[in-house]
């Protein structure tokens, strides 16, 4: 027979199922959070790295004037180069819906390279690879935008206006999208298509290569080694008479969306640890109530010979059993949750998930926490409970928290105009002060994180909206070649609805490093100096002004890549074959590290530097009506495109202003979704805490409830007393949460903004979050109170007064 003291452990487990479930839930929620976050992080970190390594991403990418296979062979012989591949990238347009065309980047490769995939390997998801001539394979990330699926035909518009139909024969995942600075990052990248080199003439493109991809044979993680080899390659380009317009150097593990991963990991760990912390308080609270209910039994055990430590060991074993059950629940559920999260992230962040698999480290961490945290959390209640004297325990005057003649009681005694039942609710709320404090701590902190998550989300959304100030124009137009601004303006303004038009200069440049070699690629934009179609978020210095000559304002990524760069310094840019010095007059905040290097300068100076004075390839059109909806803008864009095409212009792209903002904000949306998931976890922790407290409060007061019923208290009156108490706790927690949310919002927002933008947050408060949490917490309070109160009210008075 099991010794009675251990039999008591099992009996306690099953005798009060609700109480046991609450304790298990308290432990499980913390373990779940840790398990989910750890598994997600481990698999994410491993798979994103391993997946990117497996695609053999190019360490060096150079865009230049046309070159041939012989030149590629020459590059292969450059010391340090493992492999080199030539490709042709063309920006064309694809028909996505009625009257709407979107940009598509067509990459052409030799069929041998497509079969071998020695660099920038793509993963075939559906169909076939490589395509045959005049067929196309599409990258999965943007295939939805085409409106087409496997086997469908895409209409590709060529610069001449000719439309080619190409069948989609395969769908692939290309993890390297966004790896070049010039593209503006993954989220801004256009639809990606892959064709054979033999298809190029059919697409009115020249035969040959305009892009070189190369990998290093060793030191692929060493930026210095990468730069040296890149310099050597660029020298080859120069010596062979090829003009480079862009070069990018990347380590083999630098997945383009790592900044978002870093931000998510920071959120994962911060909030995951917080959940464990809150869970600890939850456990303490629930265990305090459990010990409180067993005070008399503790007294009896002491009477029949049990020492304090024998009694403590009983409860420590009980906690261990609870922990093991919670662990058994949390391990599979956290793995499933991690899988769901990883599958979501794999699609959103563009990496290949190698499948959910056991993560021993995660299980180990969960087991470690399961073994120690509940024991530590239970230490105080156990020590308190076992310290009670036998006399106090048996007399019924013992309680882990004393009802006192406290200030609160005296305060309530002075209240006038309140009914006795309401006063009972008010006093009951403050009766078990330690339990109330722990409940409020859990619920308030959970609510504060919930509200803070909304605030951070709101801040990011506000920031995204703020980004829209970079795209004030209603319609953005990109031509295949520069046209005279005067002519374009005149023609555009013939379209009904078009008001003001601005022509912007633009170029792809390269930073010239200190050693004189070309470095990172930079997108240079040249609006008119007095343009009102852009409202930048300045971080330092000033914006470009009329009269500025070689002044530039740099995006936030410059401050990371070149931390010594300051306002007033000079940088050297290579635009085409020409190198020139530019003075840094300011820094602006854009869409984060993954958006790439952007530079703004005065149109007049840029157009002279590029040899295109009075001409531009980029135009911004403002509608005469200031209040256009997105649909209206898109309609106007279609009208503009049709009109300009009829007039013989070669158009690369027409977009409504907010569409560009939406593309930019997609990465941030992932973060906000992530925050919502974590905040719901917080809400869950808080709700378990409140449910536990209210259930235990009512359980402990069952005898009182019986007495009240015996002296005339109706079921309704009893339930009202309990509900008011529950709602009062909820209301107090809401007030505390609203206050705590202020600094927590700032901390969380700063954390995310620092990772994404390398800057403190532009914090905005979403007061709807407070109202939402108020509603949630009142609902939870009601639900947490009504069920136990109802159950208690249904017992007979005899049963209740005999209740132990």
């Amino acid at each position: 027979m099991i010794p009675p003291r251990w039999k008591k452990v099992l009996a306690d487990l099953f005798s009060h199922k609700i109480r046991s479930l609450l304790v298990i839930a308290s432990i499980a929620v913390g373990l779940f959070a840790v398990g989910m976050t750890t598994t997600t992080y481990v698999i994410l970190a491993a798979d994103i790295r391993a997946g990117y390594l497996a695609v053999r991403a190019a360490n060096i990418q150079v865009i230049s004037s046309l070159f041939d296979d012989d030149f590629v062979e020459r590059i292969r012989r450059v010391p340090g180069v493992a492999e080199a591949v030539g490709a042709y990238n063309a920006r064309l347009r694809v028909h996505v819906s009625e009257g709407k065309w979107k940009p598509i980047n067509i990459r052409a490769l030799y069929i041998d390279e497509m079969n071998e995939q020695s660099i920038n390997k793509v993963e075939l998801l559906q169909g076939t690879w490589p395509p045959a001539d005049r067929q196309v394979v599409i990258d999965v990330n943007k295939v939805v935008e085409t409106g087409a699926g496997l086997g469908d035909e895409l209409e590709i518009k060529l610069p001449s206006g000719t439309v080619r139909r190409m069948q989609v024969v395969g769908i692939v995942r290309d993890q390297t999208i966004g790896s070049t600075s010039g593209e503006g990052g993954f989220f801004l990248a256009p639809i990606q298509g892959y064709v054979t080199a033999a298809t190029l003439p059919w697409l009115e493109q020249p035969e040959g290569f305009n892009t070189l991809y190369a990998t290093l044979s060793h030191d692929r993680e060493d930026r210095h080694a990468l730069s040296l080899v890149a310099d050597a390659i660029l020298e080859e380009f120069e010596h062979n008479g090829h003009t480079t317009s862009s070069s990018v150097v990347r380590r083999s593990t630098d997945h383009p969306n790592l900044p978002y991963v870093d931000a998510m990991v920071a959120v994962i760990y911060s909030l995951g640890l917080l959940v464990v912390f809150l869970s600890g308080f939850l456990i303490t609270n629930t265990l305090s109530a459990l010990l409180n209910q067993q005070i008399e039994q503790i007294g009896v055990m002491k009477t029949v010979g049990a020492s304090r430590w024998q009694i403590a060991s009983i409860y420590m074993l009980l906690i261990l059993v609870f922990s093991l059950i919670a662990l058994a629940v949390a391990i599979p559920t956290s793995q499933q949750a991690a899988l769901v999260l990883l599958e979501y992230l794999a699609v959103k962040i563009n990496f290949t998930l190698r499948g959910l698999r056991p993560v021993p480290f995660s299980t180990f961490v969960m087991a470690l926490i399961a073994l120690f945290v509940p024991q530590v959390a239970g230490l105080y209640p156990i020590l308190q409970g076992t310290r009670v004297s036998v006399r106090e325990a048996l007399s019924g005057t013992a309680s882990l928290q004393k009802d006192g003649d406290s200030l609160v009681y005296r305060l309530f005694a002075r209240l006038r105009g309140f009914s006795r039942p309401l006063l009972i609710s008010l006093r009951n709320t403050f009766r078990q002060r330690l339990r109330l404090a722990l409940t409020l701590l859990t619920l308030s902190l959970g609510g504060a994180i919930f509200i803070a998550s909304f605030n951070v989300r709101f801040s990011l959304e506000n920031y995204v909206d703020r980004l829209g100030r970079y795209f004030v124009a209603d319609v953005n137009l990109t031509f295949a070649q520069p046209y005279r601004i005067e002519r374009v303006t005149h023609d555009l303004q013939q379209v009904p609805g078009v008001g003001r038009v601005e022509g912007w200069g633009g170029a792809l440049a390269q930073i010239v490093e200190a050693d004189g070699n070309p470095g990172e690629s930079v997108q240079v934009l040249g609006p008119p100096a007095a343009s009102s179609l852009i409202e930048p978020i300045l971080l330092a210095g000033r914006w470009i002004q009329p009269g500025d000559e070689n002044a530039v304002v740099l995006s936030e990524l410059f401050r990371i890549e070149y931390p010594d760069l300051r306002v007033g310094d000079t940088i050297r840019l290579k635009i085409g074959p020409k190198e020139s010095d530019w003075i840094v007059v300011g820094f602006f905040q854009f869409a984060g590290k993954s958006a790439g290097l952007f530079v703004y300068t005065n149109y007049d100076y840029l157009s002279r530097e590029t040899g295109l004075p009075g001409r531009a390839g980029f135009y911004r059109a403002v509608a005469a009506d200031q209040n256009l909806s997105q649909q209206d803008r898109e309609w106007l864009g279609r009208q503009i495109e049709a009109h300009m095409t009829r007039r013989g212009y070669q158009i690369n792209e027409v977009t409504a202003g907010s569409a560009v903002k939406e593309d930019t904000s997609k990465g941030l949306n992932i973060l906000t979704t992530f925050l919502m998931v974590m905040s719901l976890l917080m809400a869950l922790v808080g709700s378990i805490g409140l449910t536990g407290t209210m259930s235990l409060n009512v359980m402990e007061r069952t005898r009182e409830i019986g007495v009240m019923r015996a002296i005339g208290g109706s079921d309704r009156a009893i339930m009202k007393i309990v509900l008011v108490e529950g709602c009062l706790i909820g209301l107090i927690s809401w007030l505390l949460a609203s206050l705590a949310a202020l600094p927590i919002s700032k901390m969380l927002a700063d954390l995310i903004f620092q990772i994404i933008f390398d800057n403190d947050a532009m914090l905005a408060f979403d007061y709807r979050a407070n109202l939402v949490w108020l509603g949630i917490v009142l609902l939870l309070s009601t639900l947490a109170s009504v069920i136990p109160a109802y159950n208690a009210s249904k017992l007979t008075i005899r049963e209740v007064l005999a209740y132990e």
Partner: protein
Amino acid sequence: MAADRFDMPVVYDSMGDIVIRMRGITRTFHSAAGEATVLKGIDVDVHRGEFISVVGRSGSGKSTLVNMLTRIDRPTSGTVRVGDVLIHELPEGRMALWRGRHMGVVFQFFQLLPMLSLVENVMLPMDFCNIYSPASREARALELLKRVGLEGLAHKLPGAVAGGQQQSAAVARALANDPPILVADEPTGNLDSRTAEQVMGIFAELVEQGKTIVMVTHDQVLARRTSRTLLISDGELVNEAVAAAFPGQSHSALLRLSKLASPVHLLPGVDLPDTQSPAAAPLYLLMGGELLHPDHRPGYPLGPGAIVDPLAGLQVDLFAGPAGADLLSLPRAEVLPLLSPAGDSLPPLSSLPESGQAQDGLHPPGSDL
């Protein structure tokens, strides 16, 4: 060896004849309402094999006194010696183990652990104190339950049996480690008379087997079935002889008498002390020894419990017997009202019975003994 890993029950002989000695026990409680001294300097000796009842009104301090004895509570001052151990000095942890081995405690509300069966409740003290081998504990527990008539209900939970059966199980639990001393606080307080009788029967058997039992009760009828009664009034012990001599009197009156009484010891052959003034002459309560009459009159010698008036006729010449005599001197003015309705005089000597029943004639009206 298995025998090395568990202990055997305490040996009674090692405790001596006086198993419990309490001296100067006071207990003061401090609360928001102020201080309350519940026990005010109590001295008690309990001899081996006694069956003692502790009686008193509600709030008199009887349960508090018993708590001193079991060390469920600690005295504010005074000493409690059980055997040769000053238990009031033991720290809580050691006291729990000591209590488990030396005392069995029976509570008014049974206090069985609700989630353990009756047999498991009985096994619990053995488990905690590591008494008897683990393999033999269940058998012993079943034997104890059989002894109290519960062998058929051994595996039931307390909630599934009647109150009297729970109390019987509690008694069995108290006997689990075969302690020499049993302390019961209102053991029949929650029982019907039939079940109470059963429990008292078990106690009587245990006393016959040599256990020492101290029982708190408010039931005078049950108290009379014990070998000795301690009457507590307002935190003080009434002199046992006074309580026995004046049953039916108010506890406060008895306590007052106890305080006014003073002990007198007569050596063998010594006369009762002379009195100077008849009005001040005390009455004597014979507590021990005997008083002889020089003329060897019928009804003499007088034994313990007799009330003696040295002014009354034949009792003038009384003297202590061969073993001496222990008397309590009582103030006449306090005692007379207790002995006659008019309260002014003793009954005439002629009314004294002729032989051996002098006691009866001197008992106050209303006495039911």
